[in-house]
């Protein structure tokens, strides 16, 4: 039975430049009755938009769009109230096609597109054959819609609405291999993926544009300075980086060999793995951490593709639900670069900025969902890394505060260890990551198994059950379907990641509803520009509430990682981040672009 008396399927066309908010051009909406039959069409062109939407957005209406965050961003620009119920077709499609494919090293797997035409093709909705969507979309976005004329742009827009309408109906019915959409779940998810995401993306992060422009004007000297300080091969005849800041794979391979690094993670094709995971695994090799930092930083400076609007705000895309676990796959932000680069963010005098994160979120989730009393106790004691160090016999210091200060390196190792254990890392991989003999890795695993037996049993049961049911789900229903030979490690980690994602979504939606719109969401953290200490406390309480909702009443702590006042600059606390930022500032000082002490 359709609980909505009206359904509105809608699409906007707009001009937009990277980092800016859209300049709305037109809108087409199909209004459907309670039987989902087309009743009438609304077409509006720039200048015709009123102060309220031209259709009801109350509780009896269902608003439908593909990647509805874009439509709701147009709502924001137009000053319209958000619809109460949103069905985001993109989120529904991601959910229906969230499948862990079999592991096949011989297959070169392309990232599957999940755009409207792809969704329509999956559901057998035709009609795309004669439209060159890519070109028209690009031309409209870049302001060349006049080349087509109003009628053709309307036609193009309406084609999306027509297809979205068919797609919506088919999603509710389901197709072979594509389960029928669960309306309640999609509405719940869409609160996040459309309403919250639209607001968060529109908010963005303020960039110190004066400094950013100075770095761009003095790019060669900044790059030179960073290379001198951080490229471990810099003084050799064969440095890994070119003078203009490009990483050379062959030189890196030669450098590794020269350093006697014989073991480095490789891809299935035998190439050196050069992603973040590989670098992090090899941090014990001198120079690798700095090289990793350099790789993550130079991309931002050299390519300078950060989407920054005319108001100086970096507005990245969050790509909600675009990972298998339901986490965001955010891109093009300072949080996608090395932590040192985040210091390009500088906030206004009148705001209190906090970066809040859940304390050891994944361990907390594991403790709560496994019901392991020992693990919950270790978590609640405040420093789970200390508990792990005690459990494996790495320390006899029973004072967590003292241990945290005295054993910084060990604490760091414990962090990696905890992650590895959650991932179900094998003994050989754990040994390689720790740079210790497999016997030590094996002893650690065995001791942790004895200390937290319920967690270990739960983890195995979860995976066994998933293999039987061919599906694994988060507490609130985000599911990953399983092919015939899944990667078991991906399954081991799924509960921690998917429920961490649930927590973030719940908190983000609630914060947006309460008027505390985050500037950015990052894995298990939120960046917020607030106006009072009371709001900071409110945001923390929302995070704790979200954790209790997901973790069956168990509370995951919310920590203040950064608190910035009086126009302060974002400063990541980690040593390498400080070093990186200091190199940037020193380079600018050397060329006289900034005075000593001018940049905090």
């Amino acid at each position, binding site marked *: 039975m359709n609980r909505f008396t009206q359904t509105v399927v809608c699409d906007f066309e707009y001009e937009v430049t990277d980092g800016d908010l859209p300049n709305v051009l037109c809108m087409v909406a199909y209004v459907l009755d309670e039987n989902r039959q087309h009743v009438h069409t609304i077409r509006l062109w720039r200048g015709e938009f009123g102060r309220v939407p031209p259709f009801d957005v109350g509780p009896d209406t269902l608003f439908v769009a593909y990647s509805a965050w874009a439509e709701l961003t147009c709502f924001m620009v137009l000053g319209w109230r958000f619809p109460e119920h949103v069905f985001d077709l993109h989120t529904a499609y991601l959910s229906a096609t969230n499948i862990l494919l079999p592991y096949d090293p011989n297959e070169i797997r392309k990232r599957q597109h999940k755009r409207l035409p792809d969704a329509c093709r999956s559901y057998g909705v035709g009609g795309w054959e004669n439209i060159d969507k890519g070109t028209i979309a690009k031309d409209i976005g870049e302001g060349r819609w006049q080349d087509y004329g109003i009628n053709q742009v309307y036609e193009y827009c309406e084609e999306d609405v027509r297809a979205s309408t068919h797609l919506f109906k088919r999603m509710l019915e389901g197709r072979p291999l594509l389960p029928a959409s669960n309306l309640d779940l999609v509405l719940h998810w869409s609160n996040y993926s459309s309403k919250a995401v639209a607001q968060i993306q529109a908010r963005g992060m303020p960039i110190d544009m004066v400094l950013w422009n100075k770095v761009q004007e003095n790019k060669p000297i900044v790059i030179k300075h960073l290379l001198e300080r951080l490229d471990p091969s810099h003084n050799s005849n064969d440095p890994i980086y070119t003078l203009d800041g490009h990483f050379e794979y*062959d030189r890196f*391979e*030669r450098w*590794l*060999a*020269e350093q*006697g690094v*014989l*073991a480095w993670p490789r891809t299935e094709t035998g190439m050196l793995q050069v992603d973040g995971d590989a670098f992090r695994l090899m941090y014990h090799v001198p120079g690798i951490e700095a090289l990793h930092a350099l790789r993550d930083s130079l991309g931002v400076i050299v390519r300078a593709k950060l989407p920054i609007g005319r108001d100086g705000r970096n507005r990245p895309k969050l790509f909600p639900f675009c990972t298998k676990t339901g986490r965001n796959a955010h891109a093009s932000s300072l949080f996608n670069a090395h932590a040192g680069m985040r210091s390009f963010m500088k906030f206004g005098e009148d705001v209190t900025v906090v970066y809040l994160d859940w304390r050891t979120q994944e361990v907390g989730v594991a403790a709560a969902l496994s019901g392991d009393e020992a693990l919950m106790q270790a978590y609640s004691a405040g420093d789970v890394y200390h508990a792990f160090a005690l459990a*494996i*016999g*790495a*320390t006899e210091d029973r004072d967590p505060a003292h241990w945290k200060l005295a054993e910084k390196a*060990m604490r760091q190792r414990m962090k990696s260890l905890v992650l590895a254990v959650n991932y179900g890392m*094998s*003994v*050989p991989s754990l*040994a390689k990551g720790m740079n*210790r*003999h*497999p*016997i*030590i*890795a*094996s*002893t*650690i*695993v*065995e001791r942790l198994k004895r200390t937290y037996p319920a967690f270990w049993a739960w983890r195995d049961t979860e995976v066994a059950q998933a293999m039987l049911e061919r599906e694994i789900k988060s507490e609130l229903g985000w599911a990953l379907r399983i092919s015939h030979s899944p990667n078991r490690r991906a399954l081991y980690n799924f509960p921690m990641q998917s429920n961490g994602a649930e927590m973030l979504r719940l908190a983000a939606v609630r914060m947006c509803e309460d008027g505390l719109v985050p500037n950015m969401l990052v894995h298990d953290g939120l960046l917020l520009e607030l106006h009072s200490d009371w709001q900071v406390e409110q945001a923390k309480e929302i995070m704790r509430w979200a954790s209790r909702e997901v973790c069956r009443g168990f509370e995951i702590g919310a920590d203040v990682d950064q608190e910035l006042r009086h126009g302060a600059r974002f400063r990541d606390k980690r040593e390498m981040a400080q070093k990186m930022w200091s190199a940037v500032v020193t380079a600018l000082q050397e060329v006289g672009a900034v005075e000593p002490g001018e940049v905090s």
Partner: protein
Amino acid sequence: MIDKANLHVVGAESNNPLDKFRSTRKAAIAGVETLVAGLSILRIGEAKDWVRLHPDVENYWSPELCFVTVPVKGQDKDTLHLIAEDLALAYLPSGRIKRFRLALGSMPQDKLFLCIVPTQSLDNAFNADAVAACERARVEWVMASSRRDEGLDGYKIETTRDKNPFDEPKWPTQKLMDLIVAAFRGRMIESEDSEALRRLVGARQKMS
């Protein structure tokens, strides 16, 4: 890095066996030559394919070395460790110490490995046949298959139907010792403090 001076070997042909194991240059430069690291260690019968061994016995067949298997829960492979002989003799029962040579081998298409060449119990048919197969593999492609299914001990040693069915192996220029060190990286027992030795003698591990 491993201090190769601590490696103790037996049965070396030269007066100072350690000389053979001292690397005089850095690892091969990748890009100039493919870096060979982490070769498998196989008996000739375990290759289950045509095998050639390096013809230069002096430089690419090791002297007899000492090994021991160290059990690690959670790790099925790579439990064989190279152990300095003085440590082996001091701490391990003789029955636990394995002694054999390693020779650089290749299967077709340059699939390199380190081949176990038996040096003990040569009256055992498997060992005797393995040595014979290894010797032949210096000059021609050989396949050694166990005859256990026939109810017999030893290996059936076959040669290829055609004389040169595969390209000659492209042997690396890295020294054998460097290849062995790379293959046994993290699995060389060189001091009393070694985690692997502590496991074998039942000593408490240092976890920090």
